């Protein structure tokens, strides 16, 4: 049962020689074998590679040199991070056989810390979606209810952590792709400030939005992982030379006197009454800890989804133009007559429907005559949404709201209604518009027909990850939600 430990507990056990990394890794791989067939959270399992890395880690642990909290701890990561020698698919038919010749910077950092890679986790194709249903490997199931989605796009990573198949995981969040699945699967997930973590070697979706962040079973675990991946990277010019604080230092410090903004736009119409009740109860808890609730308004909230679905497809269509099936990626199976036909066929066979939709929207809004009317206008409204947050943070320390207006929905419920799927991100996208960090923290379960987790969203100003982690840990220490595990 080693797989049910938290990262902190696994680290301690390895240091105390209660078990070796090889033992821990074998136990986790057994868990993956037992549970993954019903959840479909991993798309690639690296059994041999993991055991080799674990043996290396054991040498390091025995020597006692260069030992970090991640040394010897086996985990999987979202299949969007390039891993040298390990297939990286982005859950797309285009990359089904792609083996990268280099590691993403975050993978290099984890390797330097001595981590053990157990495999790659399922996602929506090229991180486009909120349910992991747009994957060429089929959907990931929610560990709490197999008829429901795990959320997305980092659904495989969230489900793997919730189901004890990964001690932590890395995902990406462009419009909610860490927070929404964390909320749907009942674990902690952190979307960092834009630029806090390097994106070099992470397949780009929307470049002015993409972020990389950790999933964990506890706030402390999230803090530990962030400590190892945050910071400036010469290979990603958007990472500023802002100092990385000691994230564990602020944990458990209490929240007396903290001012929590409660934005009225995130409550009321469209929100599931059970979700609202659970979030309100969590806010009450914070009041008990000595924090003060302040009613605030973020007036441009209702425009965020529209901003996102202009700007993001525009950037995506440019980024995915590099997929031509020549230098890398699948060549078309259908016969082609010339080069241009090759492009059409490669991209027809290589991309799923959601990617095709987004490429076409992006191409449309960037085409001659429409650029100012759509893309530039969306960027201007984005400025107003940023200002909403800037103004709010003049009066409050953090903002709290639901992550999603509803808990995990049924598989197939929204798959063919793209707009309904987009609106699931209504409370996560504004945060990406403003580039600020935010966390999803388990804060209760729905009751009735489906027992599903609900996540509290804690939002802070840019580069205030330490504050968010501190505030989250106060709640976690007083509640038991993070200890709940699905029956699998």
């Amino acid at each position, binding site marked *: 049962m080693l797989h049910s430990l938290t990262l902190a507990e696994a680290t301690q056990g390895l240091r105390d020689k209660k078990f070796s990394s090889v033992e821990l890794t074998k136990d986790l791989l057994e868990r993956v074998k037992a549970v993954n067939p019903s959840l479909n959270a991993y798309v690639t399992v690296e059994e041999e590679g993991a055991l080799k890395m674990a043996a290396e880690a054991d040498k390091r642990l025995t020597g006692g040199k260069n030992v970090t909290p991640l040394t010897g701890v086996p985990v999987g990561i979202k299949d969007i991070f390039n891993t040298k020698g390990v297939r990286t698919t982005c859950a797309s038919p285009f990359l089904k056989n792609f083996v990268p010749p280099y590691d993403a910077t975050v993978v290099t950092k984890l390797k330097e810390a001595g981590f053990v890679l157990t495999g790659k986790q399922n996602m929506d194709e090229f991180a486009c979606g909120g349910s992991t249903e747009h994957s060429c490997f089929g959907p990931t199931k929610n560990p709490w209810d197999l008829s429901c989605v795990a959320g997305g796009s980092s659904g495989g990573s969230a489900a793997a952590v919730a189901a004890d198949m990964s001690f932590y995981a890395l995902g990406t969040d462009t419009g909610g792709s860490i927070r929404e699945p964390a909320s749907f699967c009942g674990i902690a997930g952190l979307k960092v400030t834009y630029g806090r973590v390097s994106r070099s070697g992470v397949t780009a979706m929307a470049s002015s939005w993409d972020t990389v962040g950790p999933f964990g079973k506890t706030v402390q675990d999230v803090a530990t992982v962030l400590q190892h991946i945050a910071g400036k990277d010469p290979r990603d*010019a958007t990472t500023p030379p802002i100092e990385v604080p000691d994230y564990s230092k602020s944990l458990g410090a209490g929240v007396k006197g903290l001012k929590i903004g409660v934005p009225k736009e995130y409550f009321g119409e469209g929100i599931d009454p059970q979700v609202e009740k659970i979030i309100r109860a969590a806010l009450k808890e914070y009041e008990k800890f000595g924090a003060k609730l302040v009613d605030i308004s973020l007036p441009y909230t209702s425009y965020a989804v529209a901003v996102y679905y202009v700007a993001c497809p525009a950037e995506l269509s440019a980024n995915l133009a590099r997929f031509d099936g020549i230098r890398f990626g699948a060549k078309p199976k259908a016969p082609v007559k010339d080069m241009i036909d090759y492009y059409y066929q490669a991209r027809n066979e290589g991309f799923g429907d959601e990617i095709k939709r987004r490429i076409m929207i992006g*191409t449309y809004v960037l085409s001659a005559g429409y650029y100012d009317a759509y893309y530039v206008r969306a960027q201007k409204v984005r400025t107003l949404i940023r200002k909403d947050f800037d103004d709010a943070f003049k009066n409050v320390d953090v903002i709290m709201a639901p992550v999603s207006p509803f808990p995990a929905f049924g598989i197939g419920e929204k798959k063919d209604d793209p707009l309904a799927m987009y609106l699931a991100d209504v409370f996560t996208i504004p945060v990406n518009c403003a580039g600020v960090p935010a966390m999803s923290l388990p804060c209760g379960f729905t009751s009735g027909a489906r027992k599903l987790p609900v996540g509290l969203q804690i939002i802070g100003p840019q580069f205030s990850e330490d504050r968010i982690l501190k505030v989250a840990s106060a709640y976690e220490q007083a509640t038991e939600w993070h200890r709940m595990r699905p029956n699998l």
Partner: protein
Amino acid sequence: MITPEQVKHIAKLARLGLKEEDVGKFATQLSSIMEYVEKLNEVDVKNVEPTSQVTGLENVMREDVEARFSNREDLLKCTELPVQNEQIQVKSVITM
């Protein structure tokens, strides 16, 4: 409103092949998405600067030093097409 003809035109601009039977479906779906984003027109954006970089970074400089990113053989292994003289062999670009 995006028509099936427009879908075909946009797909052509994006060098994106579509299955004939999908064109109608995409026209309906893209129309509903574009109709939704029309709500951006309600917002007064006069004198508002566009956001293209959200943390305010500009002109990030680095030393102009040459560095080898990955070796040629490893990169050429990524293609599924035939490789000849360290070059990827593709279909003819100009056709009659």
